Protein backbone atom coordinates (compact mmCIF):
# COMPACT_ATOMS: atom_id res chain seq x y z
CA UNK A 1 0.00 0.00 0.00
CA UNK A 2 1.13 3.53 -0.80
CA UNK A 3 1.93 5.87 2.11
CA UNK A 4 -1.35 7.36 3.35
CA UNK A 5 -0.49 10.93 2.37
CA UNK A 6 0.03 9.79 -1.24
CA UNK A 7 -3.37 8.23 -1.85
CA UNK A 8 -6.35 9.93 -3.48
CA UNK A 9 -9.51 11.03 -1.72
CA UNK A 10 -11.46 8.22 -3.41
CA UNK A 11 -8.90 5.64 -2.21
CA UNK A 12 -8.92 7.10 1.30
CA UNK A 13 -12.72 6.97 1.40
CA UNK A 14 -12.62 3.28 0.54
CA UNK A 15 -10.00 2.52 3.20
CA UNK A 16 -11.91 4.54 5.80
CA UNK A 17 -15.16 2.76 4.99
CA UNK A 18 -13.45 -0.63 5.17
CA UNK A 19 -12.04 0.30 8.56
CA UNK A 20 -8.46 -0.20 7.33
CA UNK A 21 -7.33 3.34 8.21
CA UNK A 22 -8.51 6.15 10.44
CA UNK A 23 -8.83 9.84 9.70
CA UNK A 24 -6.23 10.40 12.39
CA UNK A 25 -3.72 8.22 10.53
CA UNK A 26 -4.42 10.07 7.27
CA UNK A 27 -4.11 13.43 8.97
CA UNK A 28 -0.90 12.46 10.77
CA UNK A 29 0.62 11.22 7.50
CA UNK A 30 -0.09 14.60 5.89
CA UNK A 31 1.18 16.57 8.89
CA UNK A 32 4.40 14.52 8.89
CA UNK A 33 4.90 15.22 5.19
CA UNK A 34 4.29 18.94 5.77
CA UNK A 35 6.80 18.90 8.59
CA UNK A 36 9.48 17.24 6.50
CA UNK A 37 8.99 19.13 3.22
CA UNK A 38 7.38 22.48 3.85
CA UNK A 39 10.52 24.11 5.21
CA UNK A 40 11.91 23.79 1.69
CA UNK A 41 8.74 24.26 -0.38
CA UNK A 42 6.74 26.84 1.64
CA UNK A 43 3.34 25.71 0.41
CA UNK A 44 1.64 26.55 3.72
CA UNK A 45 1.38 29.89 5.48
CA UNK A 46 -0.09 28.23 8.57
CA UNK A 47 -0.71 24.63 9.62
CA UNK A 48 -3.51 23.87 12.08
CA UNK A 49 -1.95 20.66 13.45
CA UNK A 50 -3.89 20.52 16.75
CA UNK A 51 -7.23 21.50 15.25
CA UNK A 52 -6.73 19.04 12.40
CA UNK A 53 -5.96 16.15 14.75
CA UNK A 54 -8.98 17.04 16.89
CA UNK A 55 -11.21 17.18 13.80
CA UNK A 56 -9.81 13.81 12.70
CA UNK A 57 -10.65 12.31 16.10
CA UNK A 58 -14.20 13.59 15.83
CA UNK A 59 -14.49 12.12 12.34
CA UNK A 60 -13.22 8.75 13.57
CA UNK A 61 -15.79 8.86 16.36
CA UNK A 62 -18.57 9.60 13.86
CA UNK A 63 -17.49 6.66 11.76
CA UNK A 64 -17.41 4.38 14.79
CA UNK A 65 -20.94 5.56 15.58
CA UNK A 66 -22.12 4.93 12.01
CA UNK A 67 -22.73 8.63 11.38
CA UNK A 68 -20.38 9.35 8.46
CA UNK A 69 -21.35 12.78 7.10
CA UNK A 70 -20.16 12.54 3.50
CA UNK A 71 -17.47 11.21 1.20
CA UNK A 72 -15.18 13.90 2.55
CA UNK A 73 -15.68 12.98 6.21
CA UNK A 74 -12.22 12.59 7.74
CA UNK A 75 -10.33 13.64 4.58
CA UNK A 76 -7.41 16.06 5.23
CA UNK A 77 -7.58 19.06 2.87
CA UNK A 78 -5.87 22.43 2.51
CA UNK A 79 -7.45 25.80 1.70
CA UNK A 80 -6.04 28.84 -0.06
CA UNK A 81 -5.26 31.85 2.12
CA UNK A 82 -8.04 33.96 0.59
CA UNK A 83 -10.94 31.90 1.99
CA UNK A 84 -12.21 32.77 5.44
CA UNK A 85 -12.15 30.15 8.20
CA UNK A 86 -13.66 31.64 11.33
CA UNK A 87 -11.17 32.39 14.09
CA UNK A 88 -8.11 31.76 11.87
CA UNK A 89 -5.79 34.27 10.27
CA UNK A 90 -6.54 35.03 6.62
CA UNK A 91 -4.23 37.36 4.72
CA UNK A 92 -4.61 36.71 0.96
CA UNK A 93 -0.82 36.61 0.91
CA UNK A 94 -0.73 40.32 1.73
CA UNK A 95 1.03 42.36 4.38
CA UNK A 96 -1.96 44.70 4.58
CA UNK A 97 -3.89 41.85 6.25
CA UNK A 98 -1.12 40.61 8.54
CA UNK A 99 -2.81 39.62 11.79
CA UNK A 100 -6.32 39.73 10.31
CA UNK A 101 -8.52 37.04 11.85
CA UNK A 102 -11.52 35.78 9.90
CA UNK A 103 -14.76 36.72 11.67
CA UNK A 104 -16.91 34.23 9.77
CA UNK A 105 -16.67 31.18 7.49
CA UNK A 106 -16.63 31.37 3.72
CA UNK A 107 -19.43 29.26 2.25
CA UNK A 108 -17.07 26.85 0.44
CA UNK A 109 -15.00 26.18 3.58
CA UNK A 110 -18.13 25.92 5.74
CA UNK A 111 -19.47 23.25 3.37
CA UNK A 112 -16.20 21.31 3.64
CA UNK A 113 -16.37 21.46 7.44
CA UNK A 114 -20.03 20.45 7.49
CA UNK A 115 -19.08 17.53 5.26
CA UNK A 116 -16.60 16.44 7.94
CA UNK A 117 -13.39 17.35 6.11
CA UNK A 118 -10.25 18.00 8.15
CA UNK A 119 -8.72 21.41 7.35
CA UNK A 120 -4.92 21.13 7.59
CA UNK A 121 -4.00 24.75 7.03
CA UNK A 122 -3.96 27.72 4.69
CA UNK A 123 -1.76 27.78 1.61
CA UNK A 124 0.48 30.41 0.08
CA UNK A 125 -0.62 32.50 -2.90
CA UNK A 126 0.25 35.53 -4.98
CA UNK A 127 -0.94 38.58 -3.08
CA UNK A 128 -4.74 38.91 -3.50
CA UNK A 129 -4.43 36.18 -6.18
CA UNK A 130 -2.58 38.52 -8.53
CA UNK A 131 0.19 36.62 -10.23
CA UNK A 132 1.09 33.45 -12.07
CA UNK A 133 4.04 32.22 -10.01
CA UNK A 134 3.32 32.63 -6.25
CA UNK A 135 6.38 34.89 -6.17
CA UNK A 136 4.11 37.84 -5.40
CA UNK A 137 3.27 36.58 -1.89
CA UNK A 138 4.26 39.01 0.86
CA UNK A 139 5.32 35.94 2.87
CA UNK A 140 7.90 34.59 0.43
CA UNK A 141 7.61 32.39 -2.66
CA UNK A 142 6.50 28.76 -2.89
CA UNK A 143 8.94 26.43 -4.67
CA UNK A 144 8.21 23.88 -7.37
CA UNK A 145 8.24 20.39 -5.82
CA UNK A 146 10.40 18.93 -8.63
CA UNK A 147 12.87 21.79 -8.89
CA UNK A 148 13.22 24.39 -6.13
CA UNK A 149 14.75 26.80 -8.67
CA UNK A 150 11.42 26.95 -10.46
CA UNK A 151 8.02 28.46 -9.68
CA UNK A 152 4.95 26.28 -9.09
CA UNK A 153 2.70 28.65 -11.04
CA UNK A 154 0.05 30.76 -9.40
CA UNK A 155 -1.81 32.27 -7.89
CA UNK A 156 -2.95 29.06 -6.12
CA UNK A 157 0.68 27.84 -6.07
CA UNK A 158 0.60 26.84 -2.40
CA UNK A 159 -2.46 24.62 -2.88
CA UNK A 160 -0.95 23.08 -6.05
CA UNK A 161 2.32 22.21 -4.28
CA UNK A 162 0.51 20.93 -1.18
CA UNK A 163 -1.35 18.45 -3.42
CA UNK A 164 1.57 17.61 -5.75
CA UNK A 165 3.97 17.03 -2.84
CA UNK A 166 1.40 14.86 -1.00
CA UNK A 167 1.06 17.21 1.97
CA UNK A 168 -2.74 16.88 1.74
CA UNK A 169 -5.23 14.74 -0.14
CA UNK A 170 -6.79 17.70 -1.95
CA UNK A 171 -7.12 21.46 -1.74
CA UNK A 172 -9.24 24.43 -2.70
CA UNK A 173 -7.93 27.10 -5.03
CA UNK A 174 -9.52 30.12 -6.65
CA UNK A 175 -9.37 31.00 -10.33
CA UNK A 176 -9.91 34.44 -11.85
CA UNK A 177 -7.81 34.07 -15.01
CA UNK A 178 -6.16 30.66 -14.58
CA UNK A 179 -5.09 30.63 -10.92
CA UNK A 180 -6.26 27.04 -10.38
CA UNK A 181 -5.45 25.58 -13.81
CA UNK A 182 -2.03 27.11 -14.46
CA UNK A 183 -0.39 25.96 -11.18
CA UNK A 184 -2.16 22.59 -11.54
CA UNK A 185 -0.60 22.26 -14.99
CA UNK A 186 2.86 23.24 -13.78
CA UNK A 187 2.74 20.90 -10.77
CA UNK A 188 1.22 17.91 -12.56
CA UNK A 189 -2.12 17.74 -10.75
CA UNK A 190 -5.81 18.21 -11.59
CA UNK A 191 -7.35 21.67 -11.20
CA UNK A 192 -10.97 22.48 -12.02
CA UNK A 193 -12.43 25.94 -12.49
CA UNK A 194 -16.19 25.43 -12.28
CA UNK A 195 -18.74 27.44 -14.28
CA UNK A 196 -19.20 31.01 -13.05
CA UNK A 197 -22.13 30.76 -10.63
CA UNK A 198 -21.52 27.12 -9.65
CA UNK A 199 -19.72 27.76 -6.34
CA UNK A 200 -20.42 30.55 -3.86
CA UNK A 201 -17.67 33.10 -3.34
CA UNK A 202 -19.10 34.37 -0.05
CA UNK A 203 -16.10 34.77 2.24
CA UNK A 204 -13.61 34.56 -0.63
CA UNK A 205 -11.57 37.76 -0.79
CA UNK A 206 -12.77 39.32 -4.01
CA UNK A 207 -10.26 40.02 -6.76
CA UNK A 208 -12.44 40.45 -9.87
CA UNK A 209 -15.97 39.55 -8.82
CA UNK A 210 -17.32 38.97 -12.33
CA UNK A 211 -14.62 36.34 -12.97
CA UNK A 212 -13.65 34.76 -9.59
CA UNK A 213 -14.55 31.14 -8.95
CA UNK A 214 -13.48 28.60 -6.29
CA UNK A 215 -12.57 25.07 -7.35
CA UNK A 216 -10.84 21.81 -6.39
CA UNK A 217 -7.15 20.93 -6.86
CA UNK A 218 -6.65 17.18 -6.62
CA UNK A 219 -4.64 14.09 -7.54
CA UNK A 220 -7.34 12.64 -9.82
CA UNK A 221 -10.56 13.51 -11.65
CA UNK A 222 -12.83 11.61 -9.29
CA UNK A 223 -11.53 13.64 -6.33
CA UNK A 224 -12.30 16.89 -8.16
CA UNK A 225 -15.87 15.67 -8.63
CA UNK A 226 -16.20 14.75 -4.94
CA UNK A 227 -15.09 18.20 -3.82
CA UNK A 228 -17.21 20.02 -6.41
CA UNK A 229 -20.30 18.09 -5.34
CA UNK A 230 -19.66 19.25 -1.79
CA UNK A 231 -18.94 22.95 -2.32
CA UNK A 232 -21.39 23.74 -5.17
CA UNK A 233 -24.81 25.28 -4.95
CA UNK A 234 -26.94 28.37 -4.72
CA UNK A 235 -26.14 30.62 -1.79
CA UNK A 236 -28.28 33.55 -0.62
CA UNK A 237 -25.02 35.26 0.37
CA UNK A 238 -23.70 35.25 -3.22
CA UNK A 239 -26.25 36.55 -5.71
CA UNK A 240 -24.25 35.24 -8.66
CA UNK A 241 -24.72 31.60 -7.64
CA UNK A 242 -26.97 29.84 -10.09
CA UNK A 243 -30.16 27.84 -9.69
CA UNK A 244 -29.10 25.48 -12.50
CA UNK A 245 -29.37 21.77 -11.72
CA UNK A 246 -26.59 20.64 -9.39
CA UNK A 247 -23.49 18.99 -10.83
CA UNK A 248 -23.62 15.20 -10.69
CA UNK A 249 -20.85 12.99 -12.05
CA UNK A 250 -21.83 11.11 -15.19
CA UNK A 251 -18.86 8.78 -15.74
CA UNK A 252 -18.52 7.25 -19.16
CA UNK A 253 -16.04 4.56 -20.16
CA UNK A 254 -15.85 5.42 -23.85
CA UNK A 255 -15.67 8.73 -25.69
CA UNK A 256 -17.65 7.43 -28.68
CA UNK A 257 -19.86 10.19 -30.04
CA UNK A 258 -17.94 12.93 -28.24
CA UNK A 259 -16.86 15.79 -30.47
CA UNK A 260 -13.79 17.76 -29.41
CA UNK A 261 -12.92 21.12 -30.91
CA UNK A 262 -9.29 22.14 -31.28
CA UNK A 263 -9.16 25.91 -31.78
CA UNK A 264 -6.58 26.74 -34.42
CA UNK A 265 -5.95 30.03 -32.60
CA UNK A 266 -4.50 28.02 -29.70
CA UNK A 267 -2.82 25.07 -31.43
CA UNK A 268 -1.27 27.11 -34.19
CA UNK A 269 -0.26 29.97 -31.92
CA UNK A 270 3.43 30.73 -31.98
CA UNK A 271 5.48 30.47 -28.84
CA UNK A 272 4.27 27.11 -27.49
CA UNK A 273 7.21 25.19 -26.03
CA UNK A 274 8.00 22.02 -28.01
CA UNK A 275 7.71 19.83 -24.89
CA UNK A 276 4.21 21.20 -24.30
CA UNK A 277 3.18 20.55 -27.93
CA UNK A 278 4.56 16.99 -27.92
CA UNK A 279 2.93 16.01 -24.64
CA UNK A 280 -0.44 17.60 -25.30
CA UNK A 281 -0.61 16.15 -28.82
CA UNK A 282 0.16 12.69 -27.42
CA UNK A 283 -2.78 13.19 -25.03
CA UNK A 284 -5.01 14.22 -27.96
CA UNK A 285 -4.09 10.96 -29.68
CA UNK A 286 -5.28 9.06 -26.59
CA UNK A 287 -8.58 10.95 -26.62
CA UNK A 288 -9.00 9.99 -30.25
CA UNK A 289 -8.15 6.34 -29.51
CA UNK A 290 -10.82 6.36 -26.82
CA UNK A 291 -13.37 7.26 -29.48
CA UNK A 292 -13.53 11.06 -29.50
CA UNK A 293 -13.86 12.83 -32.80
CA UNK A 294 -11.41 15.72 -33.25
CA UNK A 295 -12.26 18.75 -35.33
CA UNK A 296 -10.31 21.91 -35.90
CA UNK A 297 -12.44 24.90 -34.99
CA UNK A 298 -12.28 28.64 -35.29
CA UNK A 299 -12.44 30.33 -31.88
CA UNK A 300 -11.81 33.99 -32.57
CA UNK A 301 -10.60 36.67 -30.15
CA UNK A 302 -8.00 34.41 -28.49
CA UNK A 303 -5.46 37.24 -28.19
CA UNK A 304 -8.09 39.84 -27.46
CA UNK A 305 -9.36 37.75 -24.53
CA UNK A 306 -6.13 38.35 -22.64
CA UNK A 307 -6.39 42.07 -23.34
CA UNK A 308 -10.03 42.09 -22.23
CA UNK A 309 -9.01 40.29 -19.06
CA UNK A 310 -6.18 42.72 -18.28
CA UNK A 311 -8.69 45.58 -18.50
CA UNK A 312 -11.76 44.14 -16.74
CA UNK A 313 -9.80 42.47 -13.93
CA UNK A 314 -7.81 45.60 -12.85
CA UNK A 315 -11.01 47.69 -13.01
CA UNK A 316 -12.69 45.33 -10.56
CA UNK A 317 -9.50 45.09 -8.50
CA UNK A 318 -9.36 48.85 -8.10
CA UNK A 319 -12.94 48.82 -6.78
CA UNK A 320 -12.69 45.66 -4.66
CA UNK A 321 -9.43 46.62 -2.98
CA UNK A 322 -10.69 50.09 -2.06
CA UNK A 323 -11.97 48.43 1.13
CA UNK A 324 -8.38 47.98 2.33
CA UNK A 325 -8.03 51.50 3.60
CA UNK A 326 -6.61 50.94 7.07
CA UNK A 327 -9.91 51.70 8.78
CA UNK A 328 -11.81 48.58 9.87
CA UNK A 329 -9.16 45.90 9.61
CA UNK A 330 -5.60 45.36 8.50
CA UNK A 331 -2.63 47.67 8.54
CA UNK A 332 -3.15 51.29 9.62
CA UNK A 333 -0.42 53.92 9.78
CA UNK A 334 -1.20 55.93 12.87
CA UNK A 335 -0.91 59.58 13.84
CA UNK A 336 -1.59 61.35 10.55
CA UNK A 337 -4.51 63.05 8.81
CA UNK A 338 -7.09 60.97 6.95
CA UNK A 339 -5.73 61.19 3.40
CA UNK A 340 -2.21 60.27 4.54
CA UNK A 341 -3.60 57.44 6.69
CA UNK A 342 -5.25 55.94 3.60
CA UNK A 343 -2.42 56.55 1.17
CA UNK A 344 0.43 55.47 3.42
CA UNK A 345 -1.34 52.43 4.88
CA UNK A 346 -2.17 51.20 1.38
CA UNK A 347 1.26 51.94 -0.09
CA UNK A 348 2.96 50.13 2.76
CA UNK A 349 0.54 47.21 2.91
CA UNK A 350 0.19 46.37 -0.80
CA UNK A 351 2.90 44.84 -2.95
CA UNK A 352 3.99 46.34 -6.27
CA UNK A 353 1.91 44.04 -8.50
CA UNK A 354 -1.26 44.83 -6.55
CA UNK A 355 -0.62 48.56 -6.79
CA UNK A 356 0.15 48.27 -10.49
CA UNK A 357 -3.24 46.63 -11.07
CA UNK A 358 -5.11 49.10 -8.86
CA UNK A 359 -3.60 51.94 -10.90
CA UNK A 360 -4.39 50.22 -14.21
CA UNK A 361 -8.01 49.85 -13.12
CA UNK A 362 -8.19 53.40 -11.83
CA UNK A 363 -6.97 54.52 -15.26
CA UNK A 364 -9.30 52.28 -17.30
CA UNK A 365 -12.31 53.50 -15.30
CA UNK A 366 -11.36 57.15 -15.27
CA UNK A 367 -13.40 59.80 -17.01
CA UNK A 368 -12.26 60.17 -20.62
CA UNK A 369 -10.91 56.61 -20.85
CA UNK A 370 -13.73 54.41 -19.56
CA UNK A 371 -15.36 54.04 -23.00
CA UNK A 372 -12.11 53.21 -24.78
CA UNK A 373 -11.11 50.62 -22.18
CA UNK A 374 -13.74 49.30 -19.75
CA UNK A 375 -16.84 49.63 -21.94
CA UNK A 376 -14.97 48.44 -25.04
CA UNK A 377 -13.68 45.41 -23.07
CA UNK A 378 -17.23 44.55 -21.94
CA UNK A 379 -18.32 44.60 -25.59
CA UNK A 380 -15.46 42.36 -26.70
CA UNK A 381 -16.36 40.10 -23.76
CA UNK A 382 -19.84 39.74 -25.29
CA UNK A 383 -18.19 38.69 -28.59
CA UNK A 384 -15.97 36.16 -26.79
CA UNK A 385 -19.00 34.59 -25.11
CA UNK A 386 -20.76 34.44 -28.47
CA UNK A 387 -17.70 32.75 -29.99
CA UNK A 388 -17.80 30.05 -27.30
CA UNK A 389 -21.57 29.62 -27.67
CA UNK A 390 -21.09 29.16 -31.42
CA UNK A 391 -18.25 26.67 -30.93
CA UNK A 392 -20.38 24.65 -28.52
CA UNK A 393 -23.14 24.33 -31.12
CA UNK A 394 -20.64 22.26 -33.07
CA UNK A 395 -18.58 20.47 -30.39
CA UNK A 396 -18.99 19.11 -26.85
CA UNK A 397 -15.61 20.21 -25.55
CA UNK A 398 -12.86 22.61 -26.53
CA UNK A 399 -9.31 21.43 -25.78
CA UNK A 400 -6.08 23.45 -25.59
CA UNK A 401 -2.76 23.27 -23.75
CA UNK A 402 -3.20 24.86 -20.30
CA UNK A 403 -0.01 26.93 -20.56
CA UNK A 404 2.35 27.76 -23.41
CA UNK A 405 5.33 26.49 -21.39
CA UNK A 406 6.32 24.38 -18.38
CA UNK A 407 7.31 25.88 -15.01
CA UNK A 408 9.72 28.78 -15.45
CA UNK A 409 12.66 29.80 -13.30
CA UNK A 410 12.14 31.95 -10.23
CA UNK A 411 12.72 35.61 -10.97
CA UNK A 412 12.57 35.05 -14.72
CA UNK A 413 9.40 37.08 -15.25
CA UNK A 414 9.32 39.07 -12.04
CA UNK A 415 10.45 42.33 -13.63
CA UNK A 416 8.42 41.98 -16.79
CA UNK A 417 4.73 42.13 -15.88
CA UNK A 418 3.57 41.68 -19.49
CA UNK A 419 5.57 38.43 -19.85
CA UNK A 420 3.93 37.21 -16.63
CA UNK A 421 0.48 38.18 -17.96
CA UNK A 422 1.11 36.20 -21.19
CA UNK A 423 1.30 33.04 -19.04
CA UNK A 424 -2.51 33.24 -18.91
CA UNK A 425 -3.07 33.33 -22.67
CA UNK A 426 -4.91 29.96 -22.84
CA UNK A 427 -6.72 30.18 -19.51
CA UNK A 428 -8.27 33.66 -19.30
CA UNK A 429 -10.83 33.36 -22.08
CA UNK A 430 -12.51 30.62 -20.00
CA UNK A 431 -13.13 33.12 -17.19
CA UNK A 432 -14.13 35.87 -19.61
CA UNK A 433 -16.75 33.48 -21.05
CA UNK A 434 -17.67 32.00 -17.64
CA UNK A 435 -17.41 28.35 -18.79
CA UNK A 436 -15.91 25.44 -16.79
CA UNK A 437 -12.46 23.97 -17.52
CA UNK A 438 -10.05 21.47 -16.03
CA UNK A 439 -6.30 21.25 -16.35
CA UNK A 440 -5.09 17.67 -16.16
CA UNK A 441 -1.58 16.24 -16.40
CA UNK A 442 -0.40 14.67 -19.64
CA UNK A 443 1.76 11.55 -19.64
CA UNK A 444 4.05 11.39 -16.59
CA UNK A 445 7.67 11.09 -17.75
CA UNK A 446 9.50 12.44 -14.72
CA UNK A 447 10.17 15.83 -16.35
CA UNK A 448 8.43 19.14 -15.82
CA UNK A 449 4.67 18.47 -15.94
CA UNK A 450 2.53 19.55 -18.90
CA UNK A 451 -1.19 20.25 -18.57
CA UNK A 452 -4.04 19.74 -21.02
CA UNK A 453 -7.07 22.01 -20.68
CA UNK A 454 -10.58 20.63 -21.30
CA UNK A 455 -13.20 23.38 -21.61
CA UNK A 456 -16.90 22.59 -21.37
CA UNK A 457 -20.26 24.22 -21.97
CA UNK A 458 -21.75 26.39 -19.26
CA UNK A 459 -22.70 24.12 -16.31
CA UNK A 460 -21.49 20.99 -18.12
CA UNK A 461 -18.75 20.01 -15.65
CA UNK A 462 -20.04 16.44 -16.01
CA UNK A 463 -18.72 16.09 -19.58
CA UNK A 464 -15.46 17.87 -18.70
CA UNK A 465 -14.78 15.53 -15.78
CA UNK A 466 -16.00 12.36 -17.46
CA UNK A 467 -13.73 12.97 -20.46
CA UNK A 468 -10.80 13.85 -18.20
CA UNK A 469 -11.34 10.61 -16.32
CA UNK A 470 -11.28 8.49 -19.48
CA UNK A 471 -8.05 10.19 -20.57
CA UNK A 472 -6.60 9.80 -17.07
CA UNK A 473 -7.29 6.09 -17.18
CA UNK A 474 -5.83 5.71 -20.71
CA UNK A 475 -2.67 7.60 -19.70
CA UNK A 476 -2.22 5.52 -16.56
CA UNK A 477 -2.13 2.34 -18.66
CA UNK A 478 1.01 3.47 -20.45
Amino acid sequence: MKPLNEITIAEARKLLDEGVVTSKELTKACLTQIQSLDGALHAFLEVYADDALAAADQSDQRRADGNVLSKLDGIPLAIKDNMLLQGKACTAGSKILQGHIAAYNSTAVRKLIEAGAVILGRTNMDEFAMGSSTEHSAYGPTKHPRDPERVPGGSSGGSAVAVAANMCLGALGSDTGGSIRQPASMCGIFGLKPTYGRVSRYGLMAMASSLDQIGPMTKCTEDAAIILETIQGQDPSDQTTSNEAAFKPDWKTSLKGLKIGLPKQAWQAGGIESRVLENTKAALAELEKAGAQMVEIDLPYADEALAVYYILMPCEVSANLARFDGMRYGLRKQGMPLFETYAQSRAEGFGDEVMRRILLGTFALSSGYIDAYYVCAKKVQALIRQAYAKAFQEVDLVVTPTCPATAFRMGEKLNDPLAMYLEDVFTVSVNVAGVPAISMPCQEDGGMPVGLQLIGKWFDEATVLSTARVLESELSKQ
Partner: protein
Amino acid sequence: MKLSKEEIAHLAKLARLDLPEEKLEKITKDFGSILEYVGRIQKVDIQGVEPFTMPAKSEGWRPDKAFEVDEATRELILANFPERAGDLLAAPGVFETPKK
Protein backbone atom coordinates in the same frame (compact mmCIF):
# COMPACT_ATOMS: atom_id res chain seq x y z
CA MET B 1 -1.28 55.17 -25.49
CA LYS B 2 1.42 56.30 -23.09
CA LEU B 3 1.00 57.98 -19.72
CA SER B 4 3.43 60.42 -18.19
CA LYS B 5 4.82 60.07 -14.70
CA GLU B 6 2.63 63.02 -13.66
CA GLU B 7 -0.48 61.23 -14.91
CA ILE B 8 0.51 58.11 -12.96
CA ALA B 9 1.02 60.28 -9.88
CA HIS B 10 -2.51 61.66 -10.33
CA LEU B 11 -3.94 58.12 -10.59
CA ALA B 12 -2.01 57.19 -7.44
CA LYS B 13 -3.63 60.10 -5.62
CA LEU B 14 -7.09 59.03 -6.82
CA ALA B 15 -6.36 55.46 -5.67
CA ARG B 16 -4.97 56.67 -2.33
CA LEU B 17 -1.50 55.22 -2.83
CA ASP B 18 1.44 57.21 -1.51
CA LEU B 19 4.18 56.17 -3.94
CA PRO B 20 7.81 57.28 -3.94
CA GLU B 21 9.42 58.63 -7.12
CA GLU B 22 11.19 55.41 -8.10
CA LYS B 23 7.97 53.38 -7.94
CA LEU B 24 6.14 55.98 -10.02
CA GLU B 25 8.91 55.74 -12.60
CA LYS B 26 8.82 51.94 -12.67
CA ILE B 27 5.03 51.87 -13.02
CA THR B 28 5.14 54.51 -15.78
CA LYS B 29 7.51 52.24 -17.70
CA ASP B 30 5.40 49.08 -17.08
CA PHE B 31 2.25 50.90 -18.19
CA GLY B 32 3.82 51.59 -21.59
CA SER B 33 3.99 47.93 -22.61
CA ILE B 34 0.77 46.89 -20.83
CA LEU B 35 -1.36 49.64 -22.40
CA GLU B 36 0.12 48.90 -25.80
CA TYR B 37 -0.90 45.25 -25.40
CA VAL B 38 -4.43 45.80 -24.08
CA GLY B 39 -5.03 48.56 -26.65
CA ARG B 40 -5.52 45.85 -29.27
CA ILE B 41 -9.18 45.51 -28.24
CA GLN B 42 -9.83 48.92 -29.75
CA LYS B 43 -9.22 47.37 -33.19
CA VAL B 44 -12.07 44.86 -32.76
CA ASP B 45 -15.24 45.67 -34.67
CA ILE B 46 -17.75 46.31 -31.88
CA GLN B 47 -20.33 48.16 -33.96
CA GLY B 48 -23.78 47.36 -32.60
CA VAL B 49 -22.46 45.09 -29.84
CA GLU B 50 -24.00 45.58 -26.40
CA PRO B 51 -21.60 45.42 -23.40
CA PHE B 52 -21.93 42.09 -21.60
CA THR B 53 -23.77 42.18 -18.29
CA MET B 54 -24.69 39.26 -16.05
CA PRO B 55 -28.42 38.58 -16.26
CA ALA B 56 -30.09 39.85 -13.08
CA LYS B 57 -31.72 37.23 -10.90
CA SER B 58 -34.96 38.20 -9.22
CA GLU B 59 -34.49 35.62 -6.48
CA GLY B 60 -31.22 37.37 -5.66
CA TRP B 61 -33.04 40.16 -3.80
CA ARG B 62 -33.39 40.03 -0.06
CA PRO B 63 -34.77 42.46 2.52
CA ASP B 64 -32.21 45.10 3.45
CA LYS B 65 -32.12 44.48 7.16
CA ALA B 66 -29.41 43.97 9.72
CA PHE B 67 -28.96 40.53 11.24
CA GLU B 68 -27.63 39.61 14.63
CA VAL B 69 -24.32 37.82 15.08
CA ASP B 70 -23.27 35.79 18.08
CA GLU B 71 -20.97 37.23 20.71
CA ALA B 72 -17.88 35.33 19.47
CA THR B 73 -18.33 36.67 15.92
CA ARG B 74 -18.89 40.17 17.24
CA GLU B 75 -15.69 39.96 19.27
CA LEU B 76 -13.73 38.76 16.22
CA ILE B 77 -14.97 41.74 14.20
CA LEU B 78 -14.04 44.16 16.97
CA ALA B 79 -10.65 42.50 17.48
CA ASN B 80 -9.75 43.27 13.85
CA PHE B 81 -10.16 47.04 14.37
CA PRO B 82 -6.76 48.72 14.02
CA GLU B 83 -7.79 51.08 16.84
CA ARG B 84 -10.59 50.66 19.31
CA ALA B 85 -12.35 52.90 21.79
CA GLY B 86 -14.28 50.38 23.84
CA ASP B 87 -16.56 48.69 21.31
CA LEU B 88 -16.24 51.56 18.86
CA LEU B 89 -13.94 51.89 15.87
CA ALA B 90 -11.53 54.78 16.31
CA ALA B 91 -10.56 56.62 13.12
CA PRO B 92 -8.90 59.91 12.13
CA GLY B 93 -11.19 62.90 11.53
CA VAL B 94 -12.93 62.79 8.16
CA PHE B 95 -13.62 66.47 7.42
CA GLU B 96 -10.21 67.35 6.09
CA THR B 97 -9.03 68.38 2.65
CA PRO B 98 -6.44 66.10 1.06
CA LYS B 99 -3.01 67.70 1.53
CA LYS B 100 -1.62 66.64 -1.84
